[in-house]
């Protein structure tokens, strides 16, 4: 048997120990590879999509790698620790440290090689499926499978170097011990579950502070608060696991009336040791689950957002043109043609808007004809308006503005043509984009409209008017390919400012919506995949921990059984030990994500208008079902082993 064969057999014959670990790392590599496939996809030409694909995938990959490093390092050192007796024997037989390191290195590389190969194989096999999902999300025509060396090289390079680093750093742990210590094994119980009361209090205080800040932010929002809250919550969660839980258990353990009851004695004592040992893992699992809950929550709420979005942007395509726009007819023709090409039926309402100066506002106002608004209202199936002569209504910028001005009454005169009008409240629909309305648009009766004959001071008649075109398309979600060139001209010249240097303005909610939707779906999808990898990793770790402690636990349960613990009671004891391990991080993650969601609602006003209770409940129920079934699976394996 050569040295290499020895290392190989060590891995292959311990397959049961490594199974969960391999599964988790294979899945992590699979996801990483699929992300790289999308990142390097040659067919994605769209600049915007390329940014999302590259940026999104890159971020997801970085997160994935950070957590994979944690997971690998943690697992490998636990593996080596569990095998310390074996290493002691080998060193005792005369193996030198260099050889031991070489053996550990070889074994780790075998594991790395297996998981990278299998991960890439399945990753390539699933790429097509992944591309299909992406294609559906972005409504692309085709996103074919391709073959390029880039994703392969990236994945192999990243993960093999990861495994090399891990194999070196994790064996440091073994090298520090001498043979006798190794032979005895690491008595895992031989440390007090030490906690400091100060750190325990600090942990609880930080969590309370973070939650209170969230509630405060509901009333008064400051952007820098989010950083403070995140830091407070992270540190608080960490201290909560390392100290606070133990402190709370310690308080209970001091009260013998509570503590000295049948199984509590064992459950609490064992529980605090397990929590102390796994504090860091619990911390990671909590953070990951919070992110997972949150991203799923945000995206599921998106279905409600669709309806809301429609209400805020009732006109499917809106085009407005100033007097100096030479392309007006050309553009409108183009939009109609494009709509016809897409096979979409539409109704077009044209508005001729006149400009005058209002005496009370002392500025220019847009005046829109009642009958034109009504013909749009008929198309949109919203209530019609009926204005008397001399009456006017304000068109609100947004629905929130409407609440403020709905009862406003004001007397004003359109100065150039000298027409007195009485403003009577506001129109209860947001029909035009706010950029065009600019707080100064009024609807007036047709008779008053006809009376406006004088141009704005210092302008000609032609210069004091503009035109709106409102296309109503009932299948508004499908308009994303209409007017894309105009939209691009506009977004490029405007940037992020709200000053429009062009002589025209176009808004296509279908296109905007499709961008928002695709971004969200991608966020959800990548977030879910990363969360799945991490939850699997955490699960593999729990499995491994149980497996290495099995011998010791078996002995303990044997003693208990001799002392007269029935099988039913044994299951109860196991339950009391496993339940906190599974549901403590999960429960805290639930609380965290509830608060994060509250914060997010405060942060993003659009979201606040959406009721997401149902969606959030669904997500929580789904996660609960997964977690509970996982718990029963592990418990079943564990109980068959100890009986």
């Amino acid at each position: 048997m050569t040295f290499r064969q020895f290392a190989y057999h060590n891995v292959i014959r311990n397959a049961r120990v490594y199974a969960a670990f391999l599964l988790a790392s294979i899945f992590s590599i699979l996801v990483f590879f699929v992300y790289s496939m999308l990142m390097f996809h040659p067919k994605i030409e769209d600049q915007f999509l390329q940014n999302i694909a590259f940026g999104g995938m890159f971020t997801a990959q970085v997160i994935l790698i950070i957590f994979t490093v944690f997971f690998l390092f943690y697992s490998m050192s636990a593996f080596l620790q569990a095998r310390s007796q074996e290493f002691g024997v080998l060193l005792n037989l005369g193996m030198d440290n260099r050889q031991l390191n070489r053996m550990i290195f070889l074994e780790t590389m075998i594991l790395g090689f297996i998981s990278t190969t299998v991960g890439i194989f399945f990753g390539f096999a699933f790429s097509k499926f992944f591309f299909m999902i992406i294609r559906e999300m972005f409504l692309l025509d085709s996103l074919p499978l391709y073959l390029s060396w880039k994703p392969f090289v990236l994945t192999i390079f990243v993960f093999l170097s990861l495994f090399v680093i891990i194999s070196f750093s994790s064996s440091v742990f073994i090298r520090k011990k001498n043979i006798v210590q190794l032979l005895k094994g690491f008595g895992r119980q031989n440390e007090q579950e030490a906690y400091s009361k100060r750190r325990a209090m600090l942990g609880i205080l930080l969590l309370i502070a973070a939650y209170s800040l969230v509630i405060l932010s509901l009333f008064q929002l400051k952007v820098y608060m989010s950083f403070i809250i995140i830091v407070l919550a992270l540190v608080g969660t960490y201290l909560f696991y390392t100290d606070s839980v133990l402190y709370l258990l310690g308080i209970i353990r001091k009260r013998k009336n509570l503590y000295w009851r049948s199984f509590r004695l064992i459950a609490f004592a064992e529980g605090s040791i397990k929590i102390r040992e796994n504090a860091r893992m619990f911390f990671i699992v909590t953070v990951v689950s919070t992110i997972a809950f949150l991203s799923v929550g945000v995206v599921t709420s998106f279905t409600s957002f669709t309806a809301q979005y429609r209400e805020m942007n009732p006109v499917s395509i809106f085009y407005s043109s100033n007097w100096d726009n030479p392309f007006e007819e050309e553009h409108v023709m183009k939009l109609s043609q494009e709509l016809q090409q897409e096979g979409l039926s539409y109704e077009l309402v044209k508005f001729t808007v006149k400009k005058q100066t209002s005496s009370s506002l002392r500025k220019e106002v847009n005046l829109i004809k009642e009958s034109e608004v009504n013909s749009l209202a008929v198309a949109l199936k919203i209530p019609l308006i009926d204005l008397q002569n001399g009456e006017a209504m304000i068109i609100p910028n947004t629905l929130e503005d409407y609440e403020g001005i709905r009862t406003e009454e004001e007397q004003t005169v359109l100065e150039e043509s000298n027409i007195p009008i009485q403003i009577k409240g506001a129109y209860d629909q947001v029909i035009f984009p706010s950029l065009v309305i600019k707080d100064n648009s009024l609807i007036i009766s047709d008779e008053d409209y006809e009376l406006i004959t004088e141009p704005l001071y210092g302008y000609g008649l032609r210069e004091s008017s503009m035109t709106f075109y409102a296309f109503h398309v009932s299948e508004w979600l499908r308009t994303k390919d209409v007017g894309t060139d105009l939209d691009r001209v506009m977004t490029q010249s405007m940037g992020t400012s709200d000053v429009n240097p062009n002589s025209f303005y176009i808004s296509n909610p279908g296109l905007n919506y499709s961008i928002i939707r695709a971004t969200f779906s991608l966020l959800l999808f990548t977030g879910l995949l990363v969360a799945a990898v991490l939850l699997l990793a955490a699960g593999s770790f729990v499995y491994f921990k149980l497996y290495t402690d099995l011998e010791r636990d078996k002995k303990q349960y044997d003693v208990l059984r001799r002392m007269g613990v029935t099988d039913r009671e044994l299951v109860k004891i196991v339950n009391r030990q496993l339940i906190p391990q599974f549901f403590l991080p999960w429960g805290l993650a639930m609380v965290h994500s509830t608060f994060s969601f509250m914060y997010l609602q405060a942060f993003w006003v659009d979201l606040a208008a959406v009721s997401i209770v149902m969606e959030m409940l669904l997500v929580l129920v789904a996660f609960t079902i997964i977690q509970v079934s996982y718990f029963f699976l592990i418990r079943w394996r564990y109980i068959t082993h100890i009986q």
Partner: protein
Amino acid sequence: MSILTLEEITKVYEGKVAHLAINQLSFEVEKGEFLAVMGPSGSGKTTLLNLISTIDRPTSGDLTINGLNPLQLKSNDLSLFRRRQLGFVFQDFNLLPALTVEENMILPLTLDEQPVNVMKQKVKRIAEQLDLTSILEKRPFEISGGQAQRTAIGRALIHEPSIILADEPTGNLDSKATRDVLELLSNVNKRSNTTIIMVTHDPIAASYCDRVLFIKDGEYFNEIYKDDRRQTFFQRILNVLSLLGGNVNDLSTIRLS
């Protein structure tokens, strides 16, 4: 009055090679007796102890403990039976590492859901008796082997069982701790009239008992009763052991104190 009766107990381990561990073994133990069971390695001592502990069932034969036949009990009742009637002391102590000395001792009482004051009283009394009062709050890894075994004995005594079963209780202890533990067991046996059955390799340990039962290859070999002086009893035990004809290795180091 006998508290434990074995009649023609036979235990066969099934498997690829069937193995006869105990063969038609019969004996009785009187209430308040301190019995040692000796025999070479593989003679079936541990199997015998497991059978008496009711965690293993004999292939044939009858077993009576305190007037009850555990073989007729259901597994649930059997657990309750063990919980109230039996106490255990092991070679490697088997204290639960997560619990303190005090908590380890009250464990059988909590399983039986006794009131907290009763537990406090009992643990106080036992701790004084075993000289553990000063280390009650310590954890098992912080105390010496002798202290650990005394704690284990405390755990076996606290619920006042009819029989204490000890499996090589001195196997992991140095000579001083061995003597302490044996004197303690002997005291407990005399003072509270508790029946003790102890499996051991060590002739010194056996010399503290009232009677030594020798088994070989799962069968009854011989038994001797103690006489006035421990020294001569010890010598007679050695004689039987050499007669037993195991290998020299089976006899553990003889320490003449």
